[in-house]
C-alpha cells in the first residue's frame, strides 16, 4: 500500500495542483481587489424599510432608483440598496446599507427614506409644478442624435394647471433658468462659506437670458422654499442658532465651514432641546463648487428655457443637455428620467429596522475576528495532535483549514462580497464541517493499520466510502442553507453565502487535495 511517491509527484497531482492554483488566485484577488466589509465591521448604518402598501415589482424598482438618487446627496459614500419582493403577497422590504457615516448622518438618511421624494419645478422663484403634475412615459429618454452625438433628452408632460402657470410666468423669457429639485431642504437656514456664497450668486445659476435679468439663485430659494442663505463671516454657534429660531426654521445646514462650528451648533441645539436638524456638508475631492451647491440643494439643472411657452400648444416637453461621452449622456438621461418619475411614485416608506455601528468600533471587531480565527485554528491543531499524536496529521488538517479560509476570502474579494459578522460565522461553520470531514478521511486512511480491525478494503474503496460520507453531508448542508438564501432578507444572507461557498470549496478543492497529501504523508511511515 505504501507506494513511495516523491514530493514532486505529489505536487504534480492534479488535486494538489488545483488547490495551489486556487490559493494563488485567492491571494492575487485579495491583494488586487481587497476585502470589503459589512457595516457591522466597517461601521455604518443598515436600514430596512417597508412600503406602506403592497407594490408591484416595477414600482419597487422605481422606488429604489429614486432612493438611490436622493441618497446621493450624501456624497460618494458606499451605498447598497437591496430589495426583496414576495410576488404572492406583494409585500416587499428594502434594505439600505451605507458605510462610514456618523450617527447624525444616519438619522438624516432615515428621515430621507421615510419622507416622500417631492419633486419641484421652479422658475424665477415660483414653483410651477410638483411631482403629481409631471407625467413621464415609460422609457421616454435617450440620446438626441439630431442635436449632437452626445446629447441626451428626457420627455415629460405637465398637467394643464401647471402648464398654464408656466406659460404665465415664463412667457417671453428665453434663456432663463429652470430649476428642478427633488427633496430640497425646505424651510432651512443655509450657512455657506464666502466662496460658496459667491458661486451661488454667479452666472452658473443664471442660465443664458436673451433679455431681462432673472432673480439670482439665493433669492429664488428664499421665495420658493423659504431657504435663507447666509454668508459665513465668523458668526458664533449662538448667533446661528438664534437666527434660525428667530426665522422659525426647522433645519440648519452648514456648508464648507469649519467642522468645529458644526460640532458647536449641534451641541447647542442638543443642550437647548431644540427641534432643529443640523447637517454639515464639505466639498468632496474633485467636486467643483457648482456641483457642490447642487448637491446641498438637491438641484438638477438649472436647465435653460429654449422656447417661448406662450407660443404654440405643445403638451409634451423635453429636458435636454449634453455630456462629454455617449455613456455619460445616457447615464445623465437615465438619472433625470428617474428623478422626474420619482415625484409620482407616491408610496411612503416606513423604516422598520435600523442598526448603527460607529466606524471606530469596526477596527476592534476586525482585530477580534482575526484573534478568534487564529485561536480557533490553534485549538484545532492541538486537539487533532492530541488525538493522533502525529504532527504529520495535525499540521495538514490545520493548514488545509487555513487554506480554505484564504480561498473563501479570495472569492469573497472577487465577487465584492461585504464581509459582515454573519458571513464570518458562516466561514466558521464551513471550517468546522471541513475539519470533521478531514478527520473522516484520516480515519479511513488509518483504518487499515490500526487495532484489531482487519483490512478487507483497499485504500481506494476506503476513500470512496469517505467521500460518500462527505458528499452526502455537503449536499444536505447546501440544501439547508439555500433556503436561508431564498427566504431571508438582509442579515443572514451572508451566513448562507459563505457557508455554501465554504462547503463547495471544501468538496471540490481542499478535501480531495487533503486526501492526497495525507495519503502521501502516511505512506512515509
Amino acid at each position: 500500500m505504501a507506494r513511495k511517491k516523491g514530493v514532486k509527484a505529489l505536487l504534480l497531482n492534479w488535486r494538489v495542483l488545483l488547490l495551489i492554483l486556487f490559493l494563488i488566485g485567492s491571494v492575487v484577488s485579495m491583494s488586487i481587489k481587497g476585502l470589503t466589509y459589512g457595516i457591522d465591521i466597517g461601521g455604518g448604518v443598515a436600514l430596512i424599510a417597508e412600503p406602506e402598501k403592497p407594490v408591484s415589482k416595477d414600482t419597487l424598482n422605481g422606488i429604489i432608483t429614486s432612493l438611490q438618487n436622493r441618497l446621493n446627496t450624501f456624497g460618494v459614500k458606499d451605498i447598497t440598496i437591496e430589495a426583496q419582493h414576495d410576488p404572492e403577497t406583494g409585500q416587499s422590504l428594502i434594505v439600505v446599507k451605507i458605510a462610514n457615516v456618523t450617527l447624525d448622518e444616519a438619522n438624516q438618511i432615515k428621515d430621507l427614506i421615510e419622507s416622500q421624494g417631492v419633486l419641484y419645478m421652479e422658475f424665477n422663484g415660483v414653483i410651477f409644478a410638483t411631482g403629481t403634475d409631471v407625467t413621464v412615459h415609460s422609457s421616454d429618454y435617450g440620446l438626441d442624435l439630431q442635436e449632437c452625438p452626445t446629447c441626451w433628452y428626457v420627455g415629460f408632460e405637465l398637467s394643464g394647471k401647471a402648464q398654464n402657470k408656466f406659460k404665465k410666468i415664463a412667457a417671453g423669457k428665453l434663456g432663463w433658468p429652470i430649476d428642478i429639485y427633488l427633496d430640497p431642504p425646505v424651510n432651512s437656514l443655509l450657512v455657506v462659506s464666502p466662496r460658496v456664497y459667491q458661486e451661488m450668486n454667479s452666472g452658473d445659476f443664471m442660465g443664458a437670458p436673451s433679455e431681462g435679468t432673472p432673480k439670482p439663485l439665493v433669492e429664488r430659494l428664499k421665495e420658493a422654499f423659504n431657504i435663507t442663505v447666509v454668508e459665513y463671516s465668523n458668526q458664533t454657534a449662538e448667533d446661528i442658532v438664534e437666527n434660525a429660531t428667530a426665522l422659525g426654521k426647522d433645519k440648519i445646514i452648514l456648508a464648507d465651514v469649519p467642522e468645529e462650528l458644526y460640532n458647536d451648533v449641534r451641541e447647542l441645539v442638543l443642550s437647548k432641546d431644540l427641534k432643529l436638524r443640523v447637517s454639515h456638508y464639505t466639498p468632496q475631492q474633485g467636486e467643483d463648487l457648482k456641483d457642490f451647491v447642487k448637491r446641498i440643494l438637491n438641484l438638477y439643472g438649472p436647465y435653460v428655457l429654449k422656447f417661448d411657452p406662450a407660443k404654440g400648444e405643445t403638451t409634451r416637453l423635453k429636458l435636454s443637455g449634453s455630456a462629454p461621452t455617449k455613456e455619460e449622456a445616457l447615464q445623465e438621461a437615465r438619472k433625470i428620467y428617474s428623478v422626474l418619475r420619482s415625484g409620482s411614485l407616491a408610496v411612503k416608506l416606513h423604516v422598520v429596522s435600523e442598526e448603527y455601528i460607529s466606524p471606530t468600533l469596526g477596527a476592534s471587531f476586525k482585530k477580534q475576528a482575526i484573534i478568534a480565527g487564529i485561536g480557533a485554528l490553534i485549538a484545532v491543531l492541538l486537539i487533532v495532535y492530541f488525538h493522533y499524536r502525529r504532527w504529520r496529521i495535525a499540521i495538514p488538517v490545520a493548514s488545509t483549514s487555513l487554506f480554505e479560509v484564504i480561498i473563501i476570502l479570495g472569492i469573497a474579494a472577487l465577487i465584492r462580497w461585504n464581509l459582515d459578522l454573519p458571513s464570518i460565522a458562516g466561514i466558521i461553520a464551513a471550517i468546522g464541517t471541513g475539519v470533521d470531514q478531514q478527520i473522516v478521511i484520516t480515519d479511513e486512511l488509518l483504518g487499515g493499520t490500526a487495532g484489531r480491525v482487519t483490512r478487507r478494503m483497499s485504500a481506494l474503496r476506503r476513500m470512496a466510502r469517505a467521500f460518500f460520507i462527505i458528499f452526502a453531508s455537503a449536499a444536505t448542508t447546501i440544501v439547508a442553507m439555500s433556503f436561508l438564501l431564498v427566504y431571508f432578507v438582509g442579515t443572514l444572507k451572508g451566513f448562507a453565502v459563505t457557508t455554501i461557498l465554504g462547503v463547495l470549496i471544501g468538496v471540490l478543492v481542499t478535501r480531495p487535495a487533503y486526501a492526497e497529501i495525507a495519503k502521501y504523508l502516511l505512506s512515509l511511515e
Partner: protein
Amino acid sequence: MGTKKQKTKKKPSDEILETKRKRLSFLVRMEPRKMVLYPLVVFLVAALILAVHFPEKGIDLKGGVVVTVYHVSASPDELASYVKEKTGIDVRAEEFKDPITGLSGIRIYAPAKTAPSKIADEISNAIRLKYKDADVTPRVVDPTFGKIAQKQGIKAVIYAFIGMAIVVFLFFRDPVPSGTIIFSAFSDMVIALATMGILGIELTTATIAALLMLIGYTVDSNILLTTRLLRRKEDTIEDAYLSAVSTGFTMSTTTLGALFILWLVSTSEVIDSITIVLIFGLLADFMNTWIFNAGVLRWYIASPLKFSIKLRRGK
C-alpha cells in the same frame, strides 16, 4: 478471512488510538434498548422544558430598542437612572466586557411600544449630551418587522429541515436509518432550544442561523455512523461501531474546542450566541448520534426487518 495481524511493530501513536477505543468501548457494551431509551428520555425532558419555558424572543424578532454605548465613564446603574431622568423612558442597562481586547461597554434596553426609533434617538441624544466621547450605537427594530423576521425564520427552519430529510432519504433509501437521522436532528434542535431557555439565551435571527448550522453538523455525524454500519467492511458490528465512534469523538471534540475558543474571544453578541447554541447542540448531537442512532441501527441490523440493505448496493 481470518484476523491476520497486519504489522508486527506498532507505533506509539497507534497505541493512543487503541487506548481511545478502549475508553469508548463502554458504549459497545451498552444494551441497544438502553441506548435508545436514555436519549429518548432526554428528548422528552427537553420537550417538556420547552413547553413550559420557551426561549425568550430577542429584539430582532419581537421589536425593541438597544443602544450600545462604548467608551463611557459611568456604571450601568448611573447611566440607566440618568437616561430615565432625562428622557422619562424606563430603561434597563447591562455591562459587558471582553477579556481579550479589553473593550467594554453598556447596553441599554428599552421597550418598543410606539415609535421605537424616536425612543432610540432620545436615548442616544441624552447620552451624547452628557458623555461627549461615548460611541453610541443604537439598534431599532419595529414590532412589525419583528413579525416578518419571525415568519421568515420559521419558514427557513421548516424548509431546511424538509430539504435535509429529502436529501438524507435519497442517500440511504431506507426508511429506518433515514428516519432515525431526521429524528436525531430534530431532537438536537429541541435540546438546543431547551438549553437556550434555561440559560436565558434569546431566540434571534442569529440563533436561528445556529440551529440551521446544527442541521449541517448533525447530518455529518449521523451519515458517518450510518454509512460505516450499513456499508460495513469490518468483521463485526461492534468493530465497525467502535471505529466510527472513535472518529466521531475526534470530530466532536475538535469542533467543540474551536467553538469554545471562539466563544471565549468574541464580544459580538451575534457570534457569542451562535457558538453557545452550537456547543450545546453538538453535545446533544453526540448523544443522539452515537448512542441513540447507534442503538437503533444495531437493533435494526440484527433484526429481520433490514430488507433493503442488500438490495441497495450489490458491490
